[in-house]
């Protein structure tokens, strides 16, 4: 026997919350508890099977059940859930008082003897909480109340196998597993004669002073815990309290306690990991146990930083439907990356801010395809309202939207957020100023405002999609994008034809071009590529008057806009993926027989054409590339330079008198007919 007596140390519990606990709690808070702040009774669970370094108390969705229904090998811990309705109340409530109130319950259960009949009552914890259900943030603090004045001393400890033989241990273990779960936490082992387990109240009578200490000679106090070999668990503290109160003659005596610990050997359950503790109980008078002025209830759990303070569980990722949707969308794309495109840079796509000029058939379909690629910022510009003919072709609108005559841009944005709340989408009801649409005094301020707003929107975004239904409305955005050197994707429709192109970005940066180009291949570096209006000039007219491209009145085959929108998005994504971005060179073949377009300078998704022209009547595509036209009315140096010098003043002149552009570029054949738009269609024979 050691004569050095050190204070006995106990291993405190760690809390472990199953996510289902927060789910159930949220549901109860919303449907049942609401603002009710009264303390709720809950269940905690612990096990003494297979020792953990840190003994844990678990709570889960079943913690809220009325009756204990723990899993096999688990033991009950009685819990009190004290929820506050505001963060202030949570912060400011008197923690000492809260733990004292829990302690009072324990004190009462001990004094009345209830804890002798139902020893699991000694297992008591509380959770102080505040739930911010909007943010799915749960603030909480566990406490396992014990009296700080009870200080037993450690004498010695050893394995249970030192005092019991193997057959006795088997017998003990079997008896233990036959015990009612409420009697398993604390019990007695009688060593006189055949070893056997006894309930506490069979040997200890409440307040019975007459019981002779000798009767307890052959009794060992046992409790279920599971922790380090060197220390007993927290439970022992309240057990000692109970013993001191009901067996006051044991005060100051040396007693044996057993940490009853189970372990699994194959399919067999053993108890040979149990530990015997020789402990000297404090010499304290029964009267003083609870009433001593130095007695305080303690036991709040330290937080993850090992400080005395509450913890915060941020459950947004697994509870907020919006976060779940975002994660699923991202996962889908990650699967693609993992399985097929290991080099694809999804973050680059996700962070690209897209501006959609036009919220019609093209705008709606482009937005949906961008969503599918994981783009998170999509802004619409349109000046129209949703009409009855729209919803069947424009896939962001419904019949309901027509009734209120709602604005297209804002409605498209709203509906896009309904499809995927993770998107940041906005709509701007804006008329884009156009050449040949004179601006009178009354409209001057409004036009200037519209222009400035457009410039602001374009500069705030990374990819600009031109998806309007008229050629004239594309002019100003083309010019602004050329000036701001923005990546620009243009899509225009005919009856059964379509054109998708990326505009060149005119930088001084030298573009790298693949050195070995075959004689059948031509290559245009990205900074030399033309715009929609450059091509315009060279595009031949079509003989069929019905097949007009890009006019407000254009009638299209219904599938055309979906095909074109899909191609526009795929082209944009390919450009984003290319290491040179919009400066990526465009290759095209000169020979009809050369199918093999160069695979050099391609991005991880393949080659990047300058333009895609599609002909639904033949179900085919061609991929022409053209250089910037030095007399282009939208992107030539002369026009851009003048615009940058004189800005709105220059624009006003163009709006008033489109022929002004001819003077600037020296072009004579810009607008042949102001009222009627030029016929810009093309056919495949001429397109290569």
């Amino acid at each position, binding site marked *: 026997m050691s004569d050095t007596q050190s204070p006995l140390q106990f291993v405190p519990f760690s809390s472990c919350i199953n996510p289902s606990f927060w789910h159930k709690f949220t549901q109860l808070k919303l449907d049942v508890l609401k603002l009710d702040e009264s303390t709720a009774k809950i269940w905690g669970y612990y096990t003494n099977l297979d020792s953990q370094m840190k003994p844990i108390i678990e709570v889960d969705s079943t913690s809220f059940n009325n009756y204990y229904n723990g899993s096999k090998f688990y033991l009950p811990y009685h819990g009190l859930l004290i929820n506050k309705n505001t963060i202030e109340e949570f912060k400011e409530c008197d923690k000492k008082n809260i733990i004292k109130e829990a302690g009072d319950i324990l004190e009462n259960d001990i004094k009345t003897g209830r804890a002798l009949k139902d020893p699991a009552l000694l297992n008591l914890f509380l959770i102080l909480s505040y739930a911010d259900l909007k943010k799915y943030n*749960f603030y*909480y603090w566990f406490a396992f109340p014990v009296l700080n004045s009870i200080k037993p001393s450690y004498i010695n400890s050893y394995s249970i196998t030192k005092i019991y033989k193997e057959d006795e241990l088997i017998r003990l273990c079997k008896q233990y597993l036959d015990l009612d779960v409420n009697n398993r936490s604390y019990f007695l082992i009688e060593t006189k004669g055949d070893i056997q387990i006894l309930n506490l109240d069979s040997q200890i009578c409440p307040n019975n002073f007459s019981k002779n200490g000798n009767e307890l000679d052959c009794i060992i106090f046992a409790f279920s815990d599971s922790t380090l070999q060197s220390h007993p668990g927290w439970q022992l503290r309240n057990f000692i309290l109970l013993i001191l109160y009901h067996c006051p003659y044991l005060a100051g005596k040396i007693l044996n306690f057993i940490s009853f610990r189970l372990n699994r050997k194959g399919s067999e359950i053993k108890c040979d990991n149990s530990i015997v503790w020789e402990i000297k109980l404090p010499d304290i008078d029964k009267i003083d146990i609870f009433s001593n002025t130095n007695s305080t209830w303690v036991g709040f759990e330290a937080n993850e930083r090992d400080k005395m303070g509450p913890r*915060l569980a941020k459950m947004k990722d697994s509870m907020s439907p919006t976060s779940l949707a975002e994660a699923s969308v991202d996962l889908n794309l990650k699967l693609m990356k993992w399985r097929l495109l290991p080099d694809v840079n999804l973050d680059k796509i996700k962070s690209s801010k897209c501006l959609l000029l036009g919220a019609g058939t093209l705008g709606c379909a482009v937005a949906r395809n961008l969503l599918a690629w994981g783009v998170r910022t999509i802004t619409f510009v349109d000046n129209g309202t949703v009409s009855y003919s729209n919803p069947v072709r424009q896939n962001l609108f419904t019949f309901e939207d027509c009734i209120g005559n709602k604005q297209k841009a804002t409605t498209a944005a709203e509906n896009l957020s309904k499809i995927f709340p993770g998107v940041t989408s906005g709509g701007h009801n804006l008329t884009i100023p156009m050449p040949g649409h004179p601006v009178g005094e009354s409209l001057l301020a409004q036009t200037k405002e519209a222009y400035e707003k457009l410039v602001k929107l374009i500069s705030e975004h990374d990819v600009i999609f031109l998806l309007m239904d008229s050629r004239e409305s594309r002019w100003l955005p083309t010019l602004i994008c050329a000036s701001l050197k923005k990546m620009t994707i243009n899509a225009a429709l005919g009856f059964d034809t379509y054109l998708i192109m990326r505009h060149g970005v005119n930088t001084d940066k030298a573009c790298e071009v693949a050195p070995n180009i075959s004689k059948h291949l031509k290559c245009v570096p990205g900074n030399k590529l033309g715009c929609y209006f450059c091509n315009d000039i060279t595009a031949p007219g079509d003989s069929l008057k019905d097949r007009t491209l890009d006019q407000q009145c254009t009638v299209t085959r219904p599938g055309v806009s979906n095909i074109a929108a899909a191609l526009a998005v795929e082209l944009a994504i390919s450009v984003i993926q290319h290491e040179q971005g919009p400066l990526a060179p465009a290759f095209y073949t000169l020979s009809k027989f050369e199918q093999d377009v160069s695979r050099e300078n391609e991005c991880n998704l393949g080659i990047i054409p300058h333009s895609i022209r599609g002909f639904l009547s033949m179900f085919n595509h061609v991929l022409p590339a053209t250089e910037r036209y030095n007399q282009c009315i939208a992107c030539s140096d002369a026009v851009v330079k003048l615009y940058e010098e004189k800005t709105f003043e220059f624009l006003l002149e163009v709006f008033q008198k489109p022929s002004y552009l001819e003077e600037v570029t020296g072009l004579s054949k810009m607008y042949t007919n102001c009222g009627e738009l030029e016929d810009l269609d093309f056919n495949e024979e001429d397109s290569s």
Partner: protein
Amino acid sequence: MQITWETFKRCIEEFQDLSNELNDTWIIHKPETEENFTTYLTKKQFITPKNFEEESSIPVEYHVMYSISYGTPILCLNSWRNDGTLLTMEELWKCLNFTEDEDMYSTLTQMDHPILQRPFLTLHPCRTGEILENMFKDSRNIIVSWLSLVGPIVKLDVDLNYMKLT
């Protein structure tokens, strides 16, 4: 090879009965309504990952369910920190010692739990039918056979004693 719901249910019930006998801790969950396809089997255990810095041991919960669309059993799992926040798919892979070279996304990916409608890491069921067909056609308890094979991928070992059911 597909199995019927009735076969699945019989197999997991046998499984759980034997689990009780073997002092294992599988739990069968039956909804009060006893609707078809909603009974499933779960087990929770603590694993101590070597390469996970945050905590010494973490709870992992395994669910064995019936997939209506594949007509096969599916195994999914979740793990969480002690505040209840879920480990991300990538973190859980790390805990299970998956390396970058393995096709993790195809093997073990996040899907919604068909009954709880919450995200769980799921052992992808698209090849389960093939495995059942090729290896366990004659097993009397195909769930035991299948789980003994695929469980260890996610640190779920099935005691050899269960083989007597097959």
